[in-house]
């Protein structure tokens, strides 16, 4: 059996609204493809990904394996990142009140690999690298 990788730029994922982005990722992975991107989902979006994965688990799809490396941020960059998070939280809050879903949230700089758990047997993570063992 063959193993398919899909390398997708973070800007292509950024263009998608949040719910559609998660849907795209899970549809790709459920299809048996390993997805690699030059970005990192925010922690809350990654938790949403886990939750959505659980909703889609079935006999043929036991779930996913994820590994990501985020570029460390320091000083001003770190403060800006936190400010962006706060801004998004406020926008989410307002959209919740008005009923119009705010879904835009950008990926952080880094690298992420998401693949089907039935093919990825193990991910060994280090602070600055990770290795992936697959079995097809």
């Amino acid at each position, binding site marked *: 059996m063959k193993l398919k990788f899909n390398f997708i730029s973070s800007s292509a994922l950024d263009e998608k609204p949040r719910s559609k982005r998660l849907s795209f990722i899970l549809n790709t992975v459920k299809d048996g493809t390993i997805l690699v991107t030059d970005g990192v989902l*925010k*922690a*809350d979006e*990654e*938790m949403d990904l*886990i*939750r959505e*994965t*659980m*909703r889609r*688990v079935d*006999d043929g799809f*036991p*779930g*996913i*394996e*994820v*590994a*990501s490396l985020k570029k460390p941020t320091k000083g001003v960059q770190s403060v800006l990142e936190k400010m962006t*998070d*706060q801004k998004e939280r406020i926008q989410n809050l307002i959209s919740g009140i008005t009923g119009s879903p705010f879904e835009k949230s950008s990926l952080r700089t880094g690298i992420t690999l998401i693949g089907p*758990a*039935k093919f990825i047997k193990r*991910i*060994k*993570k*280090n*602070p600055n690298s990770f290795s992936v063992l697959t079995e097809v």
Partner: protein
Amino acid sequence: MPFGKFFDWFYTFFGFRKTVRLGIYGSVNVGKTTLANRISKDWTGEEVGKVSHIPHETRFVQKKEKVMIKQDGKNLTINLLDMPGLATKIDYRSFLKYGFSKRAAKQRAREATDGVIEAIKWLNNVDTVLAVMDATQDPLTQVNITLLGNLEAKDIPVILIANKIDKKRARPDSIREAFPQYPVVEISALKGKNMDELYEAIAKYSRRGR
């Protein structure tokens, strides 16, 4: 969120303190229920839930309310919330080797996936988290990283629990090295080792509910 700290101070100052909703989170089979049982037995004499070597034994949030911890002459009332283990995959076939029928294994897997969803939902309803890790295992897992990232984003105080230090292969230092920015308490929930240190940490780092 800085407002969280302000409100915490405000509510404490004006005496609106309520109980601490203490969530016990972590991956599967790291000893969350053993820890919940230990804390509950220490202070109420009763256990919270059943412990098993079979993964996903805890598939629903188990609660023990109004557990009063006495530390340094002060009382702290906590609602103990033992969460189902977080996971990115649940394969019903993994339960077959424990003697489950195919039907029972699928049922357990279904309940386990619901349990993960429930545990994630509860992240919005906890005041403080004990993030339990198995000190014999590699702590740098995506589940741990995602969990801690979420707690940080929500400004929820977290204490890392390096559990199972009674085992020879335990390397609690690897948890400190992997997550140096968090307080770590090394315990054996099974043997009740270092529990006083844990209660000190809970009293020190907990944020009370509102």
